[in-house]
């Protein structure tokens, strides 16, 4: 699954909540507060990077070791809510 290319579902919007000082994911009739790492993962989901590439980029930025399983678990949880979609290959338009 780490070769799959994750992308935020078009119905969801990632934005900064300036009142509560945190990132938040907004979608129909709901919202999720995100920690900084979760928000960073979603910003890296650009339709080109695979799950493995997202984990690698995160690793390069923060030097966190072996985050791939955490990235996968986080994205899978959002996919179960219909907020993240996986493509088999990068989106040429992205």
């Amino acid at each position, binding site marked *: 699954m780490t070769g799959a290319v994750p992308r935020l579902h*078009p*119905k969801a*919007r990632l*934005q900064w*909540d300036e*009142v*509560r000082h945190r990132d*938040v994911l*907004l*979608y*129909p*009739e*709901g*919202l999720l507060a995100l920690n900084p790492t979760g928000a960073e993962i979603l910003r890296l989901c650009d339709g080109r990077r695979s799950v493995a590439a997202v984990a690698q980029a995160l690793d390069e930025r923060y030097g966190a070791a072996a985050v791939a399983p955490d990235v996968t678990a986080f994205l899978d949880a959002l*996919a*179960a*809510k*219909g907020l993240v979609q996986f493509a088999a290959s990068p989106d040429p338009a992205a």
Partner: protein
Amino acid sequence: MVAKPLWLLAELTYKCPLQCPYCSNPTDFAGPRFQGELTTEEWSRVFREAKALGVLQLGLSGGEPTLRPDLETLVATAHELGLYTSLITSAYRLSRARLAALRRAGLDHVQISVQAAEADLSDAIAGTAAYRDKIAAYHATRELGFPLTVNAVLHRRNLHQVEALIGLAESLGAERIELANTQFYGWALHNRDALMPTRAQLDEAWRVVERERARLGTKLEIVWVLPDYYERYPKPCMGGWGRAYMTVTPAGEVWPCHAAGRITTLRFASVRERSLDWIWHESEAFTRFRGDAWMPEPCRSCPRKAQDFGGCRCQAFLVAGDAALTDPVCSLAPHRPLIDAAIAAAERAAAPEQPAAAWTYRAARASRSLAAQG
């Protein structure tokens, strides 16, 4: 510290071409209290104040919000502020061109009601021939790329159609279907004897929902709003009074939920007199039942009080006569026998040998008459 609101329901108008007998609007919507809709500028100020206060989700509702000619302007204002906007509409005469204009203005999500899964019954419940418009608008909504929620309010006369309603939402490619069992406020309370389902109907519908959820998985989210009269414990109404949610009525009163205005023992401030910030933090209406200091027994010593917040203040007022009592649907509430009596009356009225109970359609003439009665 008091939590900030996340949700604002903007009831832009109480005018509506549909006449659904379970409408949650006040029965006296056509009376003197609700005259004088907020202007475009006033709503824009409300949205700005809401965003500054912490609101992220904005519902544009009514009545029928598309009757406001300035809807596109209001959507654009809300979008620029960074609010996630949902249009909650009957879709009566809602054209593809109007939906496209709303899309350009930045509308995020569309929720369209349907009264049943086929035209005759849907139009009979709505009291207006609207089914064809709804189907056309569903398709236009999807073609324009909006996420779509199908909303169906359930009651005795349409609960047998749950499977067909889910099938309709699936065939439309909807993201979600809300199967909202009637909550008894406003017109629904007035028409309770005609709308209340039987236990057998609910059990059958719930079996269908469980089966369809298993079949559809994440393809279609099926939201089942509990029929709270038939529950053992009350719903966590609005996630707690004054904790996350506010409603602004067409003329600017601010309520902790869309039914709270009926509680005659509370004073409600208006955005025409006060800021939303003051109303949220200081007004009697929002502070009276915030937290748990107001709770009577059996709530006060109940371990569930942090879960359900004592249930619904409106229901306590409407059924038991005092908004500060435990929600009477709770099996532990002293006033639970009133709910059981209402269910028993509905079971008798729904017996096959009984003629179908009549309801009063939600319409301006009936509303003025109910307003005059007080």
